[in-house]
């Protein structure tokens, strides 16, 4: 498409008084050859906007607005039918550098050159249009899944609810009483699941499949094709988004032998206790005698580095409920609760108080060291560090272990390794590869049949198991988020929680699923690049099947054919550009973000001669955290070196190392890469950006060696968005270091 560029320089917000606008205009008209160059004292005002609008009507396709940060006034500078290019003269030039200084002027001129270069190459993205089914698939018919189904249906979406058990209700339906979730928070209440089951079954928009298993899900959001097997019968249908609400199972108590489990029939878990309480008779499983002295051991296998390192958050209240129910069933029964800490947050404190009031319920903080059975089925619980004594024993008829919650989720990545190894074994290839594969199959054999969603995704048939095996991807920024677009985890499979929070999760995940199908219909990205219409284009003729893109995509967007050629699924994509950064052949590009566009920006900068003693540094800034942090530094009028030129990138993972090579051979003296924090508590919106850059930087070092350049010329930094004050320090420190190393010998080549 033929483009007509026009440059608009705003003189407001200190720009006019800090820069020589005339010289800037000369750069645009003379050097860059732009015919239409205007300046205005307040471009974002009605008059300024009208000025641009009239030009757009007169045929300008790409206005280049040199004013404030592209993070400001986005609406004001959006014009129908055209792409606006923004040049950040305010936050990153005049507010952060000495006014009317030659270096500041050079910086502004370079940014204008870079903006025009980008404007010349970038195109307006056309959305990916495809037929989209807006049905929501809910996997799991417990309280979370039922709530998600009812809420999505109430919002006008068709829902398919799949439950593996013969009936709906989940675990809550097996409990005789539940924790109270509303004032006065004092006594156990009826679980109220039956009403929800009836509502689901009666709803016209909800199709329920019980006794069902998902055999296969292929496709992408808006186009998920689901194969289901229900009691031997296969069905297939299409859905748009998926809510996984597969719930929890209790921690495997057979690993709690030190607490007597498996050594006495009278040591049971809290889930078994629910059954006992539901039976209406408190009898010891060992000999059928009444259980009058019931010891509850809290955190049984929880908050324990050898078992579950986390707190499940519900066991304290469950134990309180069970103790109260036991006392109701048998007024002569006594409950001894041995805890690390009682955790009854918020108003649930009243539930704790209620149990405390009961003279038959005894609480003590204790570290339980063992449970021993005597010959006549009696039990002795030994504990340390109590206020009752340094070492105590409590005699009990029944010991209840308050075990924690484990997500009912498959480990997608491990399943993939297992399936790949199985395929190798099946092929019968010889040599070391077969041996390794056989070992993998043996080691992961227990995963056979654990698949839940059975996705046809290159990166594994289920969601990846993340921290503590929960598939929750990024709760702090994006609740219910998983690493597969259009698939949302909710309820106890996402995090340990109680039924009330599970219901809230169901509602939240239903809303996320609705967003996913609606955005898919528009051809727009879901969070975090919400509404982005661009998507990656693969020039596959030049693909070498290196599989870097299919491996490195954090969201499993790309499948592979038998040869290893990537098969794009644009609706799964979150538009981070990591594939683009990974590709050694540079065949992946977005309409408005590509290797070529950024290379042109790099080349647009004027590199001063070695004799001018003015180094040029290049910075790649993550758009999500580092770029806004640098804008904030501008708001605070913090100063930093004017020798650096920044290019915003969608994610540090999208930085292709060819840019670095280009820059160094062009004569840049140093390159600074600033991304988000990686590691367990990563802050990267695309999970692995900084991490991937770190890996690639080893290749960069190789490149530097080839060019006989110092390693220190390329530096990777990670900062959180809040670390505004440190950013200028990092920049200045880097500038000083490069100055000390000296100029790039490739200048002028």
């Amino acid at each position: 498409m033929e483009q007509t560029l026009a440059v608009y320089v705003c003189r407001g917000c200190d720009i006019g008084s800090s820069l020589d606008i005339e010289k800037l205009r000369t750069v645009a008209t003379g050097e860059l050859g732009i015919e239409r160059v205007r300046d205005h004292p307040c471009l974002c005002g009605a008059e300024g906007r009208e000025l641009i609008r009239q030009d757009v009507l007169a045929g300008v396709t790409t206005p280049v607005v040199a004013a404030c940060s592209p993070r400001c006034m986005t609406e004001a500078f959006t014009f129908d039918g055209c792409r606006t290019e923004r040049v950040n003269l305010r936050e990153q030039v005049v507010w952060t550098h000495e006014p009317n200084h030659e270096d500041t002027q050079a910086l502004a001129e370079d940014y204008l050159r870079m903006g025009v270069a980008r404007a010349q190459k970038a195109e307006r993205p056309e959305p990916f249009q495809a037929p989209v089914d807006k049905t929501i698939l809910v996997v799991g018919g417990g309280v979370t899944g039922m709530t998600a189904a009812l809420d999505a249906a109430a919002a006008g979406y068709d829902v398919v609810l799949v439950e593996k058990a013969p009936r709906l209700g989940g675990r809550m339906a097996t409990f005789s009483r539940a924790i109270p979730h509303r004032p006065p928070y004092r006594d156990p209440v009826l679980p109220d699941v039956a009403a929800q089951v009836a509502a689901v079954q009666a709803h016209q928009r909800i199709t329920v499949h019980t006794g069902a298993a998902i055999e296969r899900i292929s496709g992408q959001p808006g186009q998920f094709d689901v194969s289901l097997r229900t009691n031997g019968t296969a069905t297939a249908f299409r859905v748009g988004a998926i809510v996984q609400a597969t719930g929890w199972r209790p921690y495997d108590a057979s690993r709690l032998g030190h607490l007597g489990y498996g050594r006495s029939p009278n040591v049971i878990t809290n889930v078994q206790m629910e059954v006992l309480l539901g039976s209406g008779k408190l009898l010891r499983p060992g000999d059928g005698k009444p259980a009058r002295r019931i010891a509850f051991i809290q955190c049984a296998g929880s908050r324990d580095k050898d078992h579950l390192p986390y707190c499940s958050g519900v066991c304290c209240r469950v134990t309180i409920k069970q103790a109260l129910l036991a006392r109701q069933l048998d007024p002569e029964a006594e409950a001894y609760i041995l805890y690390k800490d009682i955790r009854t947050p918020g108003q649930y404190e009243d539930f704790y108080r209620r149990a405390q009031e009961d003279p038959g319920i005894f609480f003590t903080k204790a570290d339980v060291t063992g449970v021993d059975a005597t010959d006549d089925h009696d039990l002795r619980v030994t504990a340390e560090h109590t206020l009752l004594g340094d070492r105590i024993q409590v005699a009990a008829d029944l010991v209840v272990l308050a075990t924690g919650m484990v997500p009912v989720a498959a480990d997608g990545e491990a399943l993939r390794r297992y399936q790949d190894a199985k395929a190798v074994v099946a092929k019968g290839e010889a040599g070391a590869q077969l041996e390794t594969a056989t070992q993998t199959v043996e080691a992961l054999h227990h995963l056979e049949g654990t698949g839940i969603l059975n996705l046809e995704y290159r990166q594994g048939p289920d969601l990846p198991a993340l921290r503590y095996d929960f598939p929750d991807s990024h709760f702090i920024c994006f609740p219910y988020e998983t690493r597969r677009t259009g698939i949302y985890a909710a309820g106890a499979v996402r995090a340990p929680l109680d039924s009330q929070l599970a219901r809230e999760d169901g509602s939240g995940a239903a809303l996320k699923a609705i967003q996913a199908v609606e955005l898919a219909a528009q051809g727009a990205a879901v969070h975090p690049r919400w509404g982005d219409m661009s998507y990656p284009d693969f020039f596959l003729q030049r693909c070498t099947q290196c599989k870097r893109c299919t491996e490195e995509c954090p969201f499993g967007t790309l499948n592979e054919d038998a040869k290893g050629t990537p098969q794009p699924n644009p609706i799964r994509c979150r538009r981070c550009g990591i594939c683009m950064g990974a590709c050694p052949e540079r065949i992946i590009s977005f309409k408005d973000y590509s290797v070529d566009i950024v290379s042109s920006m790099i080349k647009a900068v004027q590199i001063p001669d070695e004799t001018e003693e003015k180094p040029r540094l290049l910075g790649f800034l993550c758009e999500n955290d580092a770029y806004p942090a640098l804008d904030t530094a501008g708001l605070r009028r913090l100063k930093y070196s004017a020798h650096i030129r920044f290019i915003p990138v969608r994610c540090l993972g999208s930085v292709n190392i060819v840019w670095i090579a280009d820059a160094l051979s062009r004569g840049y003296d140093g390159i600074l890469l600033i991304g988000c924090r990686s590691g367990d508590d990563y802050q990267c919106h695309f999970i692995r950006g900084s991490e991937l850059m770190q890996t690639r930087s080893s290749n960069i070092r190789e490149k530097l060696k080839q060019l006989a350049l110092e390693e220190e010329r390329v530096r990777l930094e990670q900062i959180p968005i809040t670390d505004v004050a440190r950013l200028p320090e990092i920049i200045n420190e880097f500038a000083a270091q490069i100055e000390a190393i000296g100029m790039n010998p490739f200048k002028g080549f």
Partner: protein
Amino acid sequence: MTTAVQPYLVKPDRRFVEAVVARGGGDLKRCFQCATCSVVCELAEGNRPFPRKEMHWAQWGLKDRLVADPDVWLCHQCGDCSARCPRGARPGDVLAAVREQAIRHYAVPRFLATWANTGATLPLVLLIPVVLLAAALLARAPLENAIPFGAEHGFYAEFFPHWLLIGFYGLFTGLACLAAVVGIVRFWKAMRAADEAQEGYAPAVGIVSSLWRALRSIVTHDRFAKCKAQAPRRSAHLMAFYGFLALYVVTLWAVLDLYVNPYVFGLASLYPFGLLHPMKVLANVGGVLLLVGCVKAIADRRRDAPGAAAGTAFDWIFVWLLLAVGVTGFATEVFRFTVDPATALASVAYATYFVHLVVVFQLLVYLPYSKFAHLLYRTVAIVYAEHTARRRPLLAAPAAVRSLPTPATAAAGVGGGQGRSADTDVLMRPSERL
């Protein structure tokens, strides 16, 4: 270190918990073991501070530990802990209820302690001295004929001769003393056994020296002086204490004057004393102190003040009894100086005197069974604490821990740091309980 100790088999006793709850420790179960009580308590020192551990033991009904615990008796129930407890568990009241249970535990025979402290059985317990005194009066003439007693003086002796009075009270207070000694010995042994089973019994100070230190502390009420929330209780207790002591000394002197001085030292008996006799003056001063002390104690208890004691039958019976002793004593004295024995009014005077004798019996003979037994057990506990250096701290408490704002300092704007007084936020009045 911990593994060397044999595990202690916890036997939760719901009945004991219920007893403590029923007898003033009604908020016991609210405690969630935060230890605010032990931190704010000015009396809790050393490496085993109270009342946190006692609260925990009481929640589990560990009677064996509580009755063998000297710390419950080192508490003066000044209410600082009850005022500051974030859960309104009122540790001060719980410890008072535990003390009652301890008195009952060591009482011989035990039923007397139960009867004497229960409103419903109190008339029955009062009936015992009435019957016994009536029996003594009936037995008077036959006894007088059988044994030649010395001459009697005065007014009330016509009605109830001194020899009979001394014989009667000598016998029954003697029995009470026996019960008291049994109780004290069992208490001492229990404390010692508990220490031996736990951290070891290690006497650090001799018994005589310990006793001397305990008495010095009691005479000065120095520990009582550390109380903050219920500071006025100290003056009430001081008055009642010295009032009672004065009256006790006068009574002993009267016995000496009547039966020892004339026969042993050859001194003429001055009994009955005139109004200006030093002993009479001491008696009247003591009586007034006792009355004022009792009235003040009753008024203090009724006041809805932060940390005020709950007031159970156990407490009220004792304080009203003490007041009754004072009131009937003064009435008896007034009648002696104003009523002509020949007139019919004499019978009113005799009746008053009879009531006085009944309440004195109630006070003295039931001492080991009533709240008055605190005189025994608290003294013994203080002696034991001195003897075993229980209050010696393992580590010096940081000054900040001890300088929490108190009602007095907070109101004055000192100690609390901020001008906003802590007492309105933190202090819990009995009527505001959760």
